[in-house]
């Protein structure tokens, strides 16, 4: 049997989640004695295979077509479903990214395969896989078994460790007939600047109501500059119109799992914790001694963020030379 990983690329660049998904695929394939096959689809993407090899797949199937230049659900779903039908794997893994969330259920419905989304862990007990997925915004954790022949799962970004492995994968061409998409991409608008994307970032600095005004985010941006971090915000800051909804972390925003999450002027309501509770290290800075964030954080600083954050930026600059 085999395990298939869909290697996500956008605009000809591989996403970090592609490497995370292959790393987890490798671990599971080794445990289950399966081979690991990677599907790489796009327009003129053969050159990316060499980066994927480093994570130890047994085979990389590459599909090149100008019809795959932009991501479109129907064209990509056709390619992945055809590849799965050809390989008949036990398990298909994708990232729980914007593309993976859109693509995986479409393919699962076509194949009548059970799909568990947003997994934070997958276990193999010697006979079957079980899939661990947070529910109720992380306030409970559910374990699922999938009883269809082909099982599918999407993996939460920034949770599964990258692990390089023997890189001798065979690279083969896969040339399915590609269905015309009934949808066309008119425009792609990427956020300006060179900050990491929130769900992929190693460090996130977030601001909330405690900033007092939208200009307060200038300070958060400076802190993020000092750390090479992404900038997030609480729902209160978004609802006040200070920040775009795209930056919101929490139950009705993005779910993030960075190595370091620095919350500035965020009280730490349960809806916010739902979005960042799986961060490896949390720092909370708030002047309210009763703020929940100070309890939840690994390290809390009770104080005026307009004094603490500038001091922190100075100290970081000093330490980093």
């Amino acid at each position, binding site marked *: 049997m085999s395990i298939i990983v869909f290697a996500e690329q956008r605009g000809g660049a591989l996403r970090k989640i592609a490497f995370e998904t292959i790393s987890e695929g490798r671990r599971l394939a080794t445990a289950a004695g399966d081979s690991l096959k990677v599907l790489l689809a796009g327009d003129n993407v053969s050159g990316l295979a060499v980066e994927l090899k480093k994570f130890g797949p047994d085979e990389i199937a590459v599909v090149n077509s100008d019809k795959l230049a932009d991501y479109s659900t129907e064209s990509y779903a056709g390619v992945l479903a055809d590849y799965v039908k050809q390989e008949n794997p036990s398990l298909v893994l994708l990232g729980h990214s914007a593309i993976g969330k859109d693509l995986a259920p479409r393919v699962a*419905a076509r194949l009548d395969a059970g799909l568990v989304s947003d997994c934070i862990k997958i276990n193999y007990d010697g006979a079957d896989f079980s899939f661990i*997925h947070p529910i109720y915004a992380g306030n409970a954790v559910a374990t699922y078994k999938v009883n269809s022949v082909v099982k599918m799962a999407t993996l939460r970004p920034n949770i599964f460790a990258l692990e390089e492995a023997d890189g001798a994968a065979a690279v083969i061409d896969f040339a399915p007939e590609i269905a015309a998409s009934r949808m066309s*991409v008119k425009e792609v608008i*990427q*956020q300006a600047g060179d900050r990491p994307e929130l769900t992929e970032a190693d460090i996130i600095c977030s601001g909330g109501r405690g900033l007092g005004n939208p200009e307060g985010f200038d300070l958060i941006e400076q802190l993020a500059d000092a750390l090479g971090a992404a900038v997030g915000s609480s729902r209160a800051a978004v609802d006040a119109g200070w920040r775009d909804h795209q930056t919101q972390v929490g139950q009705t925003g993005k779910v993030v799992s960075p190595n370091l999450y620095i919350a500035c002027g965020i009280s730490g309501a349960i809806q916010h914790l739902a979005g960042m509770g799986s961060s490896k290290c949390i720092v909370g800075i708030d002047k309210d001694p009763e703020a929940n964030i100070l309890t939840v954080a690994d390290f809390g600083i009770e104080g005026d963020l307009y004094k603490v954050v500038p001091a*922190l930026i100075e100290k*970081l600059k000093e330490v980093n030379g």
Partner: protein
Amino acid sequence: MNIVACIKQTFDTEAKIVIDNGQVSTQGVNLIINPYDEYAVEESIRLKEKNGGEVVVVSVGGDKTQEALRYCLAMGADRAVLIQDPALEQVDNLGCAVVMAKLISQMEYDLVFCGKEAVDDGAAQVPSMLAEKLDLPQANVLTALEVADGQATATREIDGGSEVLEMQLPAVFSAQKGLNDVRYPSLPGIMKAKRKELKVVSLADLELSAEDVAVKTELVATELPPVRKAGRVLSGEIDEMVAELVSLLKDEVKVI
């Protein structure tokens, strides 16, 4: 323009999650319409108000789900259909998509609107599965939608930005926060809703069997999440706290 809006009744997002007998307890929990589905219903009603036609709200659920559907009727939807069957009590996302697709395929419609995901299981599966089962194009996580002459222009949120998509109707869409501001039902709306049609259909009515909706993803355990280790609040002057923090982050947890 005829629109089908799909909703799910979920726990109030403020509800405390209690596990009882390996299951999330529903005891004393306030039920609401999944917030993303509310954006879908709102957008559907706005499209109808602009272009004419009707909005039909559809859900899979139990007796209590009627309240959620009645609320959508009070907002301005025209009629509602509840798919209710003992065989659907443990239904998974694929099963939901199968039954809703069967119902919707028997209706005349121009577009189908869902929320981008339900806040309870956070799976984000049903809209795409529904589009596949109806063999329609899809656009998920919409923050804007324009419809004219049978053509839709949809702005969808992607990682680190957005994209603008064009497609012919019919199509399946899913709503993200920011698409609109959801209205509250007016008093006349609430009165009118009492007389609007709310039809309950079973699997047999849809000519489906329990086998057609058998679960593919089986929930085997539900637990509370591991408790985060208690942290510590630093003390001292600001300079001291900041120096200690940087040293902890750099040398102890090694994240910077």
